[in-house]
């Protein structure tokens, strides 16, 4: 009975639905963000140098971008509609603030992406070369702006600023027109945005480098003289380009992640305490490599720890080996005290002491580690690849080629764990309380919502269950086709486009078709 009641709990189902949609959507998004920029740069290099390699690269990765873009757009629509469908109480409560960034995202970013992508696909040879180059740059700008606005909305859920609670309407409302400015200057947004964008570059760099390393080593090893030539002229420069993005993206991802983490220690101490499995307030908190179990709400005990490094958690959080870090128990205590001092919380939710404010311990702890751990693949790929290519060498190592391919899905999974960590760590809140505002008695002090209170009450759990199952199945089917198509295009390589064995006149048509991406 317990399993059945959990299975039909609308909040659990609603969260699974959102989780599945988000993680799926965000497997596709980083590649779209990074690849549109990478293709724009490739086409620019071709435009400037006239070097055919970069035209080939533009076409090759351009097609992969298009296959990916379609599914990204498709899953993005669900994302927007889900707020109203499954989380109508949330939408009622926050719509005054939360809806605007979504609307701006559509107006400022989606139109740009989709209109200019259409122009890029069908505009080869139809508009001037310069104008055509501009279209792909506008697509790249659009995808990045899109991330900016959706992260403005998400950062607000992590740390609500620019809002006040209005007891007369029972809603969170924008704190004057200036409140909108506060959304955009949310301290969480700066590091979240830079972290997401740079990790998109890291993922894309790995994607490009992984594919081209595989091709380079294969061609050079098994392709005969022509293969060696192709490896040197085509795949080596693209590999170097991809690894360059990995290095830049990797350094920025690590840096922005570090500062984002430090900020989270300040603004969402419960999330970081759970991520580091720190149970009680500790001076010189240790970094734990692996932990099993969760921190108790009071008293001793806690998870089983494997390998701890003293002082490192404190160092990462506060730049000092001996600083005091808030533990899960301290964070719970702090929340109970602050919330009970807030008349609006007490009026709506009752005594805060009856609630358990701990996020799910294991998903939070492990998703944090897996997010960081998967980045090691990109680092290793960069070191190995750059070493193997030093001084103009063309590597032929089978292992290196395989490792390049393996790194690609691993990095995608890493990005998903990043989102699982961000969203799971915020539980049980859908809008996390703004601790700073509460401590200072600012007007935004009463803006928060527990996840359970955000669900749609007019949607029967059975309907959510049905749609959850059907969405998952649909996503699985489309995901398989997506992977298969991407793989097929990767295997097609860079020279063989559209020239089947049955095309006797393939070479004559080649010039006309060379630039065609169309339907």
């Amino acid at each position, binding site marked *: 009975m317990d399993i059945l009641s959990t299975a039909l709990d609308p909040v659990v189902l609603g969260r699974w639905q959102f989780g599945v949609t988000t993680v799926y959507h965000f497997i596709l998004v980083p590649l779209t963000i990074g690849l549109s920029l990478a293709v724009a740069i490739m086409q620019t290099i071709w435009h400037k140098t006239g070097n055919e390699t970069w035209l080939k690269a533009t076409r090759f990765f351009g097609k992969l971008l298009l*296959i990916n873009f*379609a599914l990204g757009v498709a899953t993005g*629509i*669900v994302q*927007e509609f889900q707020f*109203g*469908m499954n989380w*109508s*109480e949330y*939408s*009622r409560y926050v*719509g005054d603030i939360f*809806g*605007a960034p*979504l*609307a*701006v*995202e*559509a*107006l400022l970013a*989606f*139109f740009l992406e*989709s*209109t200019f*992508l*259409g122009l890029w*696909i069908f505009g080869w040879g*139809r*508009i001037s070369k310069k104008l055509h180059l501009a279209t792909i740059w506008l697509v790249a700008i659009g995808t990045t702006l899109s991330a900016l606005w959706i992260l403005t909305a998400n950062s607000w859920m992590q740390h609500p600023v620019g809002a006040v609670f209005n007891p*007369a309407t*029972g809603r969170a409302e*924008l*704190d004057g027109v200036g409140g*909108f400015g506060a959304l955009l200057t949310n301290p969480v947004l700066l590091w979240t945005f830079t972290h997401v964008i740079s990790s998109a570059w890291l993922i894309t760099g790995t994607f490009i480098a992984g594919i081209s390393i595989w091709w380079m080593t*294969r061609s050079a*090893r*098994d392709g005969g003289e022509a*293969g060696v030539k192709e490896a040197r002229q085509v795949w080596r420069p693209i590999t170097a380009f991809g690894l360059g993005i990995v290095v830049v993206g990797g350094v920025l991802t690590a840096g922005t992640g570090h500062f984002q983490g430090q900020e989270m220690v300040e603004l969402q101490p419960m999330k970081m305490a759970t991520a580091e499995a720190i149970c009680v307030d500790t001076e010189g908190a240790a970094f734990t490599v692996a932990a099993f179990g969760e921190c108790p709400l009071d008293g001793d005990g806690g998870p089983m720890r494997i390998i701890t490094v003293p002082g490192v958690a404190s160092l990462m959080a506060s730049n000092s080996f001996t600083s005091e870090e808030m533990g899960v128990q301290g964070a719970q205590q702090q929340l109970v005290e602050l919330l009970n001092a807030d008349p609006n919380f007490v009026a709506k939710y009752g005594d805060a002491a009856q609630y358990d404010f701990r996020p799910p311990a294991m998903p939070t702890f492990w998703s944090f580690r897996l997010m960081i751990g998967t980045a090691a693949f990109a680092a290793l790929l960069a070191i190995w690849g750059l070493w193997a290519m030093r001084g103009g060498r063309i590597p032929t190592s089978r292992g290196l080629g395989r490792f390049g391919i393996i790194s690609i899905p691993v990095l995608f999974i890493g990005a998903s764990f990043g989102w699982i960590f961000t969203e799971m760590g915020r539980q049980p809140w859908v809008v996390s309380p703004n601790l700073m505002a509460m401590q200072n008695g600012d007007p935004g002090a009463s803006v928060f919502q*527990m996840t*359970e209170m955000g669900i749609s*009450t*007019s*949607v029967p759990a059975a*309907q959510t269950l049905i749609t959850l199952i059907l*969405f998952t199945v*649909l996503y699985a089917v*489309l995901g398989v*086709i997506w992977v298969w*198509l991407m793989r*097929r295009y990767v*295997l097609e*390589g860079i020279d*063989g486009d*559209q020239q*089947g*064995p049955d095309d006797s006149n393939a070479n004559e*048509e080649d010039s006309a*078709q060379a630039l065609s991406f*169309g*339907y």
Partner: protein
Amino acid sequence: MALSIIWFILIALLWTVYLVLEGFDFGVGMLIRVVGKTPDERSVAVRTIGPHWDGNEVWLLTAGGAMFAAFPLWYATMFSGMYLALFLMLVLLIVRITAIEWRSKLKSQRWRDTWDWVHIVAAYGVPLILGVAFSNFVQGMKIEAQAPTVVDGSLVMTTIAPADVPAAMANGNIAFNLTGGFFSLFTPFTLLGGITVLAVCMAHGAQFLALKTEGEVRERSVKVGAVASVVTVALAAIWVLWGQLAYSPNAWGWIPLVIAAVALVLAAVYAQPKVQREGMAFIFSSVGIAGAVAWVFTTMFPNVMVSSIDPAYSLPISWASSTEPTLIVMTVVAVLLVPIVLVYTIWSYWVFRKRVSVDSIDANPGILPDWIRPKANFLTGKNPM
């Protein structure tokens, strides 16, 4: 005029632009196999919307986002109330996107035909659902006002008596929810609305195809458009008159109604092969859609959601809207951005203004499913060379 009323009109405008633009995309989708008898002709049909359909669809996202921002309570009531219908629409929109984008990624007729069928089903399904949804706005839905309270850490809803609704609004503890269930959305009137919108889109799409193609595809499109536009006039007349007489509280709803009627009749006239002015037909069809959407919104005014249970349970514009500061921000954003969007959208239509013909279709778009290029036989896969 209050900003909330301006935004009510703007939301109607966003839906209008969406239905005018994506309306012909759906119509083209419905007619792929009707106007396209050969594979190349089917590619011609899809190519007419190729560069534009994605941008057209963004108007839906904009309309949704603007409803969320300007009328969060409307957005919440509507989207949760029409849960399964919207789910179905999302599924169809998802597969439609992949059907269009992926159809020519492989050089295989079976692959392309399969995706075309997916596209066709989606192109029929979405307008049908949209029509049922808009008819529900006109007719009113089984909506009740409820009071959300937190009991033992979970959310509980209790229905508020109609007389107590004003008091509940005064203290803010109120939510409007559909309580009639999924099947309450379907009545003879709403089903007729679904079929009407489907017919409108088909006629609109046929006129667009006639405008954008050459040769036999164009001839067939003209024929379909001539019939579909007449059927549309008949269906729309019944639906709109029924709605206006049975459900509309506003007499001035007759103004957009008459505009829509005149425009659709003119579209049908211009669509006849003897007259054959596809440009005029398309323009009047667009005006007809705009008039119909305007009429739907007049039947709701001054509410955004009408309750068929009790007028007190209807969700008024004034209560459903966001606060003044949010609406000011939204207005500034819209005034700055919408003109820019319109300029480059129009430019993209200008760039691809040429009619699409069979000659302009690539002989072999896409790559072979399992062919591997010569000298690359180290790869897995078949190599016939």
